[in-house]
């Protein structure tokens, strides 16, 4: 039986990396692409997680439906935050998004619908055609959703939506003069980012099979922020890599587990001071280095 134990641990980590990456890529669309600060992403993960937990335990809804509904619920939450954000900028927006996170956690804790302080347990594993997904097969599901989310993010970049995001990030007044409805695109930015969070939340709930309000506190948002800044604002590959690093590092260095929030915040400060582009963001040291290698290889090819 030993091999199963050995396999379970890395697969758990892989699953967690996959779910966190979905939420982080969403956050990166809001913050990196559209330039709208969101320090409360955990709230939307919570909305997704509780939506799916309630729908599957109370109303025995099929997993695929509850996955979509939890994404949708989080998107609605994100749209509301977007509506508020239209009137706020930078630091005030940041504080508001933190506030949203605290409000969401209080609601989860206060109302019996969300299981109060006990949370919701016995969340069923999804099953398809009588085959229950767990372990490697569940990880497979997570990575299918992650791949779809990455495709979505890549499409955003190619589309006019991506250009509208760039425009509102750079200069809202100029964007308005280019017929870009700044209010609408801010709301879309928050809605998409929150929707990704909702999907991640649903996947997290059905993986852990037990969720409680304290899973979605502000410190989770900080963890996701660290991932996005470490990976590089606007970089999808960077965010995925950042997720792996941030999830794995307390696992590798166990004694640091209880100090991890301190370390994340220190990491944020150091990054923002010395390498604000993150690991793989545009113009970051690493991506410039990789680019120079590619250029050199290409030249050598050309010389032959």
């Amino acid at each position: 039986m030993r091999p199963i134990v050995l396999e379970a641990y890395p697969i758990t980590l892989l699953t967690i990396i996959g779910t966190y990456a979905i939420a982080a890529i969403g956050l990166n669309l809001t913050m990196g692409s559209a330039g709208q600060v969101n320090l409360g992403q955990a709230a939307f993960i919570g909305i997704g997680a509780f939506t799916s937990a309630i729908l599957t335990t109370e109303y025995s809804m099929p997993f695929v439906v509850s996955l979509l509904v939890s994404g949708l619920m989080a998107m609605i939450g994100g749209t509301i935050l977007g509506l508020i954000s239209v009137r706020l900028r930078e630091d005030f927006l940041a504080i508001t998004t933190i506030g949203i996170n605290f409000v969401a956690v209080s609601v989860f804790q206060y109302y019996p619908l969300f299981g109060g302080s006990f949370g919701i347990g016995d969340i069923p594993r999804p099953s398809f055609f009588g085959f229950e997904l767990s372990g490697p097969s569940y990880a497979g599901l997570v990575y299918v959703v992650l791949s779809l989310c990455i495709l979505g993010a890549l499409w955003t970049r190619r589309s006019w939506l991506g250009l509208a995001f760039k425009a509102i990030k750079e200069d809202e007044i100029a964007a308005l003069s280019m017929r870009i409805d700044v209010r609408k695109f801010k709301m879309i930015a928050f809605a998409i980012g929150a929707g990704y969070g909702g999907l991640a939340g649903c996947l997290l709930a059905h993986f852990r099979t037990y969720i409680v309000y304290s899973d979605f506190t502000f410190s989770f948002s900080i963890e996701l922020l660290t991932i996005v800044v470490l990976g590089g604002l606007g970089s999808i590959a960077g965010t995925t890599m950042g997720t792996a690093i941030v999830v794995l590092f307390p696992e590798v260095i166990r004694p640091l587990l209880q100090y991890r929030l301190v370390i994340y915040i220190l990491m944020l400060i150091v990054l923002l001071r010395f390498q604000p582009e993150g690991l793989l963001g545009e113009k970051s040291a690493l991506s410039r280095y990789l680019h120079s290698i590619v250029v050199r290889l290409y030249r050598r090819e050309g010389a032959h």
Partner: protein
Amino acid sequence: MKALIKTEGLCKFFGGIKAVNDVNIRCEEVEILGIIGPNGAGKTTLFNLITGFLRPSSGRIFFDGINLERRNVVGRVKLGIARTFQVTRPFRSLTVYENVLISYGSPNYSGLSFLKSSFKEAYAQGVRKILRDVGLKNVEDQISGSLPIGYQRRLEIARALALKARILLLDEPTGGMSHEEGQEIVSLAKSLRQMGLTIMIIEHNMRVALNACDRIYALDYGSVIAEGKPDEVVNDRKVIEAYLGAGYVAKS
């Protein structure tokens, strides 16, 4: 001649300051209309009212007979009113090409068509043509924020053109430029008028205004003090007074 832009009793007050005070102007189709006046005369405020960045305290603005009262900035751009900014506002960290592309694709930002791909040969060709027309072809891959001011002003015009507007409102397009660069912008404006565009141009420099415009309104303290052919307006007593002070007129 049909008025493309017409204002009726347009006023904008900031507290006790009358930035624009009972302004009635007409901008005919396919003309270069100059708005001149000393600093603080209300020229840029007038542009902000026409483009919808500011709401008038009273009075009305018509574009091609349409009352603009209920239209916001985006709605007015959609009708065909494009502008440039006195202090240039390029999307600083994007390339010149991307800047113009964002503007060129403007019909795609309404409804759900923003989901469509922006990588299309037709778009690239359209953008490149505009870049060639305004003389930015050789800097298209440069980051716009690091360009010299002359290029940034051309970029502003390129973006306004890419909106396929009917009227361009140019806010001091020659500001901070050498005389030669300014002349290039003037001839660019003239060639655009030749293509059927209407242009309203704020100009601080009398010599440029004299050279570029078909007709001029002179503003001072928010009110129109003179209107007419360029040489008439620049020789108008009130205009000289506004620029140089009453004492100067008395001496000469």
